[in-house]
């Protein structure tokens, strides 16, 4: 008798006595509870942001009169939770993003430094027109005040836009007047917190009432996405790659755009591992309508589905 045969028989015998009672009711009740918690979280997010917006409004009240009339085509309501609202479809104007004076804001592993002019607006605004429309709506109705909170914007990008729902907390942040580095992560073994990525955000516009915009990640030596280069023009299929340290890694690549709820391209999964080993794959995408795309690469599966991720912003070749 071969080892394989013995093994198969032992497994079958061992498992045969295990029964599984029907507990579908328990599944349904837990799903309902999770959905309730989600709603509470979103409402809480809205509530916290409303307070932040109220404080910001009080501080900025004297300056409000200087601003131009509303350009919002569909006025956003003052809902407590963030809701998508259709406004204008203005072209991307990344040059209006503000970087700290004299400090290029995105440092990448290849040493390239991107000035404010080169930053790509990834989320939540596609361009300055949308950001201004939100500002106008915010002044009149207090809509979506979470835009003024870098941490909430970082979490919204991670969970809502990229869909990495298990990356559910801010693990560190450095928020300046015009840019912010926000680390997001999850609960690891033994109640410890692990960081999945460090997001880079900048104020989209000027002044403290300008909303935050995610423009990329600050990649470390453990996981990077170097190809395509940040801000590069791309066509489908595109080569995506970088370097990674780890064991039994499995890298999933997705292509996102703001106007579509689901990724427009996905490649899963690229096996990778060891120390500083390059990884590379080709990903196709279709249905690209936006000028800026977000390319994300994630790896995980040991503790959480996504344990580390990196993103880059690229432009679609016209």
């Amino acid at each position, binding site marked *: 008798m071969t080892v394989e045969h*013995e093994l198969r028989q032992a497994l*079958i015998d061992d498992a045969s006595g295990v029964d599984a009672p029907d507990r579908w009711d328990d*599944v349904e009740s837990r799903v309902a509870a999770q959905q309730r918690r989600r709603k509470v979280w979103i409402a809480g997010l809205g509530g916290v942001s409303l307070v932040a917006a109220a404080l910001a409004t009080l501080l900025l009240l004297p300056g409000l009169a200087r601003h131009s009339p509303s350009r919002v085509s569909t006025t956003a309501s003052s809902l407590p939770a963030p809701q998508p609202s259709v406004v204008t479809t203005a072209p991307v104007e990344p040059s209006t993003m503000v970087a700290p004076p004299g400090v290029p804001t995105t440092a990448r592993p290849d040493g390239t430094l991107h000035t404010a002019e080169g930053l790509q607006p990834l989320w939540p605004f596609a361009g300055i027109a949308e950001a201004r429309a939100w500002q106008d709506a915010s002044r009149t109705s207090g809509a979506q005040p979470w835009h003024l909170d870098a941490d909430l914007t970082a979490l919204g990008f991670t969970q809502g836009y990229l869909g990495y729902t298990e990356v559910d907390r801010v693990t560190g942040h450095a928020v300046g007047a015009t840019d912010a580095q926000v680390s997001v992560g999850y609960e690891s073994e033994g109640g410890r917190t692990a960081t999945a990525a460090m997001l880079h955000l900048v104020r989209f516009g000027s002044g403290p009432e300008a909303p935050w915009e995610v423009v990329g990640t600050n990649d470390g030596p453990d996981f990077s996405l170097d190809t395509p280069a940040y801000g590069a023009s791309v066509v489908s299929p595109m080569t995506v790659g970088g370097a990674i340290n780890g064991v*039994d890694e499995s890298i999933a690549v997705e292509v996102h755009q703001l106007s579509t*709820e689901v990724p427009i391209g996905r490649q899963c999964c690229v096996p990778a591992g060891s120390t500083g080993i390059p990884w590379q794959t080709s990903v196709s995408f279709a249905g690209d309508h936006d000028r800026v795309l977000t390319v994300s690469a994630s790896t995980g599966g040991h503790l959480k589905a996504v344990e580390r991720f990196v993103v880059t912003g690229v432009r679609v070749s016209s």
Partner: protein
Amino acid sequence: MIAAVPVPRVSTDELAADVELRDLYRSERRSLVRLAWLLVHDQGVAEELVQDAFVKAHLAWGRLDDPDKALAYLRSVVLNGARSRLRHLRVVERTTVPQPACGESAETAALAGEQRRQMLAALAALPIRQKECVVLRYYCDLSQAEIAATLKISVGSVKTHVHRGLAALSALLEPQR
């Protein structure tokens, strides 16, 4: 669009999740619990891992690329949970004073073949990844490609883990024969 913040899924997704997942639960929960049992050897934990997997699948239903792959997704979640559990237990084992193990009852020991007990003991000694690959291959009868997709590793890695797992089992069993 001002912001692409998470949009609540439409009710059709929830309905589909209810109907299709419930059917899947009724047809596959036993095989999934048994799969989890083979890895964690704890009935309660195995059941909870499968319950957790169905809750996650329900919440993620609208995001599944292909609902036909729901079973593969469930297996993957169960394995992730089992892996996490085993890692936790290893940490606990390292930090607690060993207690006398509860041996099998005389009746169980008599019923279980000696070879089977040796095989299961050897299987328990394998590294987690090798054990997962071996169980998926020889209990679930999954192909190497299916195992690779479930564990999100390459087919080459699956081949390596299965080969090393079988070699380790042979080596562990040899002195006892």
